[in-house]
C-alpha cells in the first residue's frame, strides 16, 4: 500500500512539486535559523569575553599580593560557581577559589561543566588563565545564556519544520489534488480518444486561461479535428466506394450480358469468364482495402459482445474442415485448459481473423501439412493460436507481411490478395488484442492474445 502510495506520488507531477517545495521551504528555514543561532552565540561569547577582560583588568590593578589574594578570596566567596568560577594558584603552592584548582588555560577556552569539580557547575564555561601578581588566576564565566539559547533554538528547530510541513503540506496537497484531478481528466480523455471514443472532451474549469485550461482546450481542439478527420475519412471512403463500385458493377453487368448473349466461341467464352474472375478479384481487393481503412479509422465498439473464443473457433474450424480434407491438410482444433474463454469482440470480425489465418495456412503449406488451431489461457487472458508445420515466414519478413498488398516472393504466383494479414492486424488492433508471428520450427505459429475486458 505504501509502495502504491509512493508510486502515485511519484507519478503525479503536482504532488511531486509540492513535496519538493515543502522540502526546500523547510531546509531554508533551518538554514536561516542555524545562521541566526551561530551569530547570536558568538555575540554572547564576545560579551562574556569582554566581561572577563574587565575582570582580569580589575585584579591587575591591585599591586599588593596580600590585598590581591584577599580580594580574590572575597570574590570567590561571593560568586556562585554556576555563574562564575575563580581559582588562584599562588607560586608558593597555596590556592584559593570557589572550585578545586584547575589546569592552566593560556587562551580563552570553552570548558565543559563536568570538568569543573563542583556539584553546582553550569553546563559550560568560558575559561582563561592569566598571570596576576605572584600566581596564576583562572577565571571561568558561565555560558548559561548560550546553553539556554541553544535549547530555545533546538526547540524552534524541531517545531518550525513541523509547522511548516503541516501548513505547506496541507495547502500543497490541496492545490496538488485540484491540479491532479484536472490532469487526470486530461489523461482519461486522451485515453478515451485513443480508444476511438472521439466524442470525449476535457471539461474546462473556470480558472480562467491557466496552463491546464490551455492544454485542455488544445486537447479538445485536437479531438474535434480528429473527429472531423474520421468523419471525412468515412465520407470519402463511402464516396470512393460508391463512385468506384458503380463502374465495377457496370463492367460486371456488361460481362455477364456478354456471357449470356450466346453465340460466343469457346475462346471468347473463356476470355469473358477470365475477365469476370478479375472483376471479382478487383472488387474483393477493393472491399478489403475499404474495410481495413474503416477498421483503422477507429471504428467504434458498439457491436462488441461477450463471446466464448472456443465456440467461435469451433464454428470456423468446422467450416474449413471439408476444405482442408479436400486439399489433404490435417486441420484440428485443440482446447487447452477448461473454458469458458470469455472475450469481448465482434463475432464476425473475429471469425474473419481465424478464417484468414486458416486460409493462409491452407494456401501456404503443402498437402499433408498439419494445421492446429489452439484455444488456451495465457495467465488471465485467452489466446487463439494457429500453428502449421509449413515453410513459415522468415524472421525479417514477419513485419512486412502485415503491410497491405505485401506478398512473399515465393507466394507471388499463388492466390490471395496480400490483404488477409493486414485485415487480421487491423481487427486485432480494434480488439486491443496482441498479434504475434513466430517460428514454429518448422512452420509458422500465429498467436492472438485477447485482453479479458472490453477495450476502453
Amino acid at each position, binding site marked *: 500500500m505504501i509502495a502504491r502510495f509512493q508510486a502515485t506520488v511519484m507519478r503525479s507531477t503536482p504532488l511531486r512539486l509540492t513535496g519538493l517545495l515543502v522540502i526546500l521551504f523547510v531546509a531554508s528555514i533551518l538554514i536561516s535559523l542555524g545562521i541566526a543561532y551561530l551569530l547570536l552565540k558568538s555575540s554572547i561569547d564576545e560579551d562574556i569575553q569582554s566581561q572577563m577582560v574587565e575582570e582580569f583588568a580589575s585584579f591587575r590593578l591591585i599591586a599588593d599580593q596580600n590585598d590581591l589574594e584577599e580580594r580574590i578570596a572575597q570574590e570567590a566567596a561571593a560568586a556562585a560557581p554556576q555563574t562564575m568560577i575563580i581559582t588562584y594558584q599562588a607560586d608558593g603552592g597555596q590556592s584559593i577559589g570557589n572550585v578545586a584548582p584547575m589546569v592552566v588555560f593560556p587562551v580563552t577556552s570553552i570548558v565543559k561543566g563536568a570538568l569543573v569539580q563542583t556539584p553546582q557547575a553550569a553546563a559550560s564555561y568560558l575559561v582563561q588563565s592569566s598571570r596576576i601578581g605572584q600566581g596564576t588566576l583562572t577565571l571561568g564565566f558561565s555560558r548559561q545564556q548560550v546553553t539556554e539559547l541553544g535549547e530555545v533554538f533546538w526547540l524552534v528547530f524541531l517545531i518550525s519544520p513541523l509547522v511548516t510541513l503541516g501548513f505547506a503540506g496541507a495547502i500543497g496537497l490541496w492545490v496538488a489534488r485540484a491540479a491532479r484531478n484536472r490532469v487526470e481528466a486530461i489523461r482519461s480523455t486522451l485515453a478515451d480518444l485513443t480508444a476511438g471514443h472521439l466524442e470525449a472532451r476535457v471539461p474546462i474549469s473556470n480558472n480562467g486561461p491557466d496552463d491546464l485550461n490551455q492544454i485542455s482546450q488544445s486537447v479538445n481542439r485536437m479531438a474535434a479535428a480528429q473527429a472531423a478527420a474520421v468523419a471525412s475519412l468515412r465520407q470519402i471512403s463511402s464516396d470512393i466506394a460508391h463512385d468506384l*463500385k458503380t463502374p*465495377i*458493377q457496370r463492367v460486371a453487368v456488361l460481362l*455477364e*450480358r456478354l456471357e449470356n448473349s450466346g453465340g460466343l466461341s469457346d475462346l471468347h467464352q473463356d476470355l469473358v469468364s477470365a475477365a469476370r474472375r478479375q472483376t471479382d478479384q478487383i472488387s474483393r481487393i477493393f472491399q478489403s482495402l475499404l474495410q481495413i481503412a*474503416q477498421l483503422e479509422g477507429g471504428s467504434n465498439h458498439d457491436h462488441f459482445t461477450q463471446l466464448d473464443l472456443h465456440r467461435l473457433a469451433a464454428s470456423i474450424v468446422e467450416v474449413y474442415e471439408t*476444405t482442408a480434407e*479436400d486439399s489433404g491438410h490435417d486441420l484440428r482444433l485443440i482446447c487447452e485448459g477448461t473454458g469458458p474463454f470469455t472475450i469481448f469482440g465482434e463475432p464476425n*470480425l473475429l471469425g474473419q481473423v481465424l*478464417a484468414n489465418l486458416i486460409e493462409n495456412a491452407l494456401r501456404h503449406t503443402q498437402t499433408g501439412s498439419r494445421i492446429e488451431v489452439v484455444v488456451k489461457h495465457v495467465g488471465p487472458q485467452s489466446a487463439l493460436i494457429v500453428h502449421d508445420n509449413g515453410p513459415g515466414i522468415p524472421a525479417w519478413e514477419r513485419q512486412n507481411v502485415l503491410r497491405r498488398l505485401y506478398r512473399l516472393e515465393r507466394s507471388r504466383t499463388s492466390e490471395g490478395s496480400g490483404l488477409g494479414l493486414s485485415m487480421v492486424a487491423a481487427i486485432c488492433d480494434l480488439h486491443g488484442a496482441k498479434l504475434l508471428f513466430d517460428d514454429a520450427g518448422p512452420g509458422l505459429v500465429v498467436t492472438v492474445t485477447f485482453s479479458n475486458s472490453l477495450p476502453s
Partner: protein
Amino acid sequence: MKILVIEDDTVTAAYIADGLRQEGHSVDVVENGLDGLMQASHSGYDVLVIDRMLPGLDGLSLAKTLRGAKNRTPLLLLTALGGVDDRIEGLNSGADDYLVKPFAFGELSARINALGRRPQLADQDQSLRAGDLEMDRLTRKVTRAGEVIDLLPREYALLEHLLRRRGRVQTRTMLLEAVWDIHFDPQTNVVESHISRLRAKVDKPFASELIVTVRGAGYRIDAT
C-alpha cells in the same frame, strides 16, 4: 412478383430490371430517393430493391421512413459499403437483406425470391420431401428410396435449408449466412466442398441428382 427498383445508376438499374423481367417479374424503376418513397408507399409491391446511396433521399433513410410508416414490404438494400458496421446499420434501418456491390445477377435474383416468398416457407411440416428423399425433422432421420442416409449435423442443416426452400436457388453467400452464420467472404471454396460432401451421400449412390447447381448463382433442390 411486383418489384420496385430504386437505383440511380441507369446501367445497373436497367440490368436489374431486364433480368427480373426475364424471370417473369413486373418491374418498376425509379432513380430518385424521394420519388422512390412516394412510389413505394402507394403501390403494393412484393419486394423493394433500394440502392443505399441515392439522390434526394438516401437508402437508409428511405428504409427507416417506410418502416416508420408501418410499411412492411420486404426490402433489399444494395450498397457499395460492405463493412460489418455498414451491414448492421443497414439491417437496423429496417432492411430485410443486404447485398454488396458489385453483385452477380444470380445472387440478387436468389435473394429477391427468398424475400418475396418468405411467408411460404415450409416451416411447420414435420417431414420434408423432394422426389424419393424424405427428411423427418422430429427424428432427424433422412432416407432416400427407403435407404437411411447418415448425415453429419452440418450436412443435415445444409440439406434442411435447401429442402425448406425447394425450387429456390440458394447462393453461396446465402448458404454461408444461413447455415454457418458467416457474414464475410471466405476466399476458399468452403461451400462447394460441403455441398460435394452432401452430394456424395445424398445423390451419388442414387440414379438422379436432387441438388442442382445453378451456374453463376448457386444450388437448388427442385420441388417435385
